[in-house]
């Protein structure tokens, strides 16, 4: 209990400072609204429905993009580990594409698909495939041969071995690749919505900032930040649970 309290203390102090500093004039109120005002602004955004309409759009984009990346990335990575021709074809491509800063894709998908959902979903999918595929590939490649052999000896076919033995033993690296991908997914989502979009939470932030409604902008920013934090914590829980056999 004490340690719990202790671990929150730094955060509480920061929040307190945030509330007090603008009120006593340490920083300008319009540049850093006190926390309570931000909360009130958040209630306003939530009750007017703006937060939800834009939030649902962002959520849909993030979810679709991430889902595509996870499925395609996993299949690609495992296939590369399992089959030499696939590996020979995709490895050089992966090595060439890996160093590209993923954000460089923002204008590309916007060029291809305009400002709608399709553009953002493609961006997220393209950007997040590589971390997933690399995790799956490294994990699957690290699967011990004796495990595969014993699977075959126990009568499992090639496909079965892949699904029953290779994928589970690739799981730790695959999951950590997916975790990276999820973080990247949010970054790409928010920044592309800020830069090239007509809706979504990122757009909302840009719009509020542009119109000088700063307390609402802070509220929207904190909403996304906290959402990202929750997603990561939940996924970490999930990883622990899935890997509890370790």
């Amino acid at each position: 209990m004490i340690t719990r309290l202790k671990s929150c203390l730094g955060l509480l102090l920061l929040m307190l400072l945030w509330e007090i500093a603008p009120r006593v004039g340490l920083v300008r109120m319009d540049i850093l609204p006190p926390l309570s005002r931000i909360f009130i602004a958040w209630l306003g955004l939530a009750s007017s429905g703006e937060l939800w309409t834009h939030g649902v759009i962002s959520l849909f984009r993030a979810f679709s993009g991430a889902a595509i990346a996870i499925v395609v990335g996993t299949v690609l990575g495992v296939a590369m580990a399992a089959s030499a021709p696939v590996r020979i074809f995709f490895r050089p491509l992966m090595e060439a594409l890996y160093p590209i800063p993923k954000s460089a894709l923002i204008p590309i998908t916007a060029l291809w698909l305009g400002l709608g959902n399709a553009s953002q979903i493609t961006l997220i999918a393209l950007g997040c495939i590589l971390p997933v595929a690399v995790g799956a590939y490294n994990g699957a490649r690290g699967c011990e041969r004796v495990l595969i052999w014993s699977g075959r000896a126990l009568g499992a076919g090639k496909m079965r071995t892949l699904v029953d033995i290779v994928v589970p033993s690739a799981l730790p690296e695959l999951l950590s690749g997916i975790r990276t991908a999820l973080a990247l997914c949010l970054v790409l989502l928010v920044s592309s919505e800020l830069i090239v979009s007509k809706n979504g939470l990122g757009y909302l932030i840009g719009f509020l900032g542009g119109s000088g409604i700063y307390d609402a902008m802070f509220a929207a920013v904190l909403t996304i930040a906290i959402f990202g934090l929750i997603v990561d914590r939940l996924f970490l829980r999930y990883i622990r649970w899935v890997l509890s056999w370790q």
Partner: protein
Amino acid sequence: MAVIGRTEDGVRSSPVASALVWLAGIAREYGSLVLVLICWELVARLSLVPPYLMPPFNEVLVRIWAEIGDGTLWVNLLDTLRRTLVGFGIAVVAGVAIGLLLARSSTAEWLVGPLVSIGFPLPKIVFLPIFILWFGVYDTSKVIMIVCDAIFPVITATVAGAQGVERQIIWSARNLGAGERDLLWTIILPAAAPQILSGIEVSLPIALIVAVITEMMLGGTGIGAAMMESWRFAESTGVFAGLLELSIIGFLLIRSMNALRRRLLRWHAEAQADLV
């Protein structure tokens, strides 16, 4: 096959044979890449997709050549690189310092530790509009944003590395007469170096990604800004040229990072091989 066998034996390695071996190696190494580039060129040339969506590869190269010629490439490239490296450098120095502090001082640990563990998974890029509000649209905002994003992997890696130093290694050093300061500089830092470097390796690409985003958002100079400019005028060659340039920067940065790691961790590469 026989040709390859002979060259390997070194009995009669004719220049033709060794050239063939070399070509086979190249094909295996880069075959698919070349294939994809050729497909790109063909698709664009045969107008299977409109050129404003996908310019032919050679036109992209011509465009880059032109940018080299009129000097815009260097301006943009150096700007992007400078911001990335300045932000990255600050992130590394500050990150290692904060990490060591967190690992060695329990007060710092319970005051700042939770902030770090919350800050790491936050999508910090959402704070960019706030930084614009505070610091304007010039380099300050950009560099601060890069530092914010790139510092967390360094901090957590440093904490993990410094806390993971074997107790007996520290004891040995103390036993041999090391004081607190010696301990930090000659034992904990080198012992944590492999982990710290892994953290740095994660943070370098992040720095580049964020640098590009800030340039795209805030405009001004830099490759990211140039790409957005081209995008606005639907100039697809410019967009793709930017993509290619950024890929090359990313590639060079990652390569130099690897080289640095190999240099610094000569002792470690083999250590991993036969650790019991």
